């Protein structure tokens, strides 16, 4: 039987599932898979501080995104604007409650949950407090992370607007740009801090405490 400590020194590539041994990296170095060159892990000593700062920043942009209009159109003198909440409400008013529910959970609920989880998690790990809550949050994060589609929503806005070019006059709203920033920050967080890096930091910071 293999001990847990030995298993912790191993990593499996997410793409081709090749087994690798984790080497101690210097600050700023990146380890890639020997078979498919996918990034396996990287070494960044300030990752928790960076993650905390970035997730607080993205929370601010998330607020802006949800409060202000994304796009405003002007057609023969009549004006219309769209916000994320208005999209969901319109859909449910027209009877598409399943689509409304799905859009709401993918672009409204899950970003809020994910960002608040990131902030509390990084804080708990940074302060080395409440190991059990941190573990539960990491598990919850793992379940919610695949159901986050802000980036896809951003592309959809662009596609919708290109469809409208020529019909109406389009004015970009504040929320569109804040969504753009939010997606970029979020992309960086998920790239630089994938689940196994978070778990590794969790184990490293809480290793003094005994299990259970």
């Amino acid at each position, binding site marked *: 039987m293999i001990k847990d400590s030995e*298993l912790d020194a191993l990593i499996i590539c997410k793409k081709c599932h090749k087994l690798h041994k984790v080497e101690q990296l210097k600050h700023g170095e990146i380890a890639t898979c020997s078979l498919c060159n996918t990034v396996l892990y990287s070494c960044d000593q300030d990752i928790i501080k960076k993650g905390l700062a970035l997730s607080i920043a993205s929370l601010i942009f998330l607020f802006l995104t949800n409060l202000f209009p994304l796009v405003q159109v002007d057609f023969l003198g009549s004006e219309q*604007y769209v916000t994320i909440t208005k999209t969901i409400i319109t859909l449910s008013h027209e009877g598409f409650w399943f689509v409304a529910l799905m859009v709401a959970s993918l672009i409204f609920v899950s970003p809020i949950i994910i960002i608040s989880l990131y902030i509390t998690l990084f804080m708990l790990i940074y302060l080395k407090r409440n190991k059990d809550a941190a573990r539960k949050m990491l598990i919850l994060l793992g379940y919610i992370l695949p159901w986050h589609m802000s980036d896809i929503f951003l592309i*959809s806005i662009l596609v*919708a607007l290109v469809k409208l070019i020529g019909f109406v006059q389009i004015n970009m709203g504040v929320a569109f740009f804040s969504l753009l920033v939010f997606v970029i920050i979020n992309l960086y967080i998920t790239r630089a801090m994938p689940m196994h890096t978070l*778990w590794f930091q969790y184990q490293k910071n809480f290793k003094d405490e005994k299990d259970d």
Partner: protein
Amino acid sequence: MIKMDDVSNLIRCPLCEAVNYDRGMQTRCRRCHSSLYAYKYFKNEKTIAFLITAIIAYIPANIYPMMITKNFGHETSSTIIGGVILLWEHGSYPISLIIFFASIFVPIVKFVILLYLFINARYPKEEMSNSTKKSMFYLAEIIGPWSMIDVFVVAILASLIHLQSIQIIAGDAATAFALSVFFTLLAAQSFDISSIEKHKRGIRDESRDSNTK
């Protein structure tokens, strides 16, 4: 030290990405305690159930209109393929290609990959190497969510273009398509990646299961 014999029994927890020793059907992840083999007698049956539901939902998604445009009382409705062709004829090739890629290419590729992997796990044939199959699964997982583009576009247009003279209303296909995407996402998540290569040893031997503590 780790022996080479043990290495082939190592699996990756899909939730927290920890490396685990495969203790057969009762394996729980040592780190996040999620069960790695939840379905002892229903291996990947959940996947195929979700996949069939998604394929069934994909049929009305292509038959019914996705988007209805009311222009000065004149109503035109377009299906997914109709919308792609219309955009191509209007000359907006990139958008037409994006919609084609997101709503037709991605779902079908995902259906084919998951079906192939499911059948291959059941009736093994050594056509492709295991790492290729795993890369295929990874591809299906990555491109899957992008088929939501069309639903989002319709949602945005329906709430944005709500003027007196011109209105865009979502069609019945939106619900069907959203259902289809939802179930393909579930199908991909419930698929047990280790079943790609585990068939070599046949059905996971019960003797090893009972030996676990």
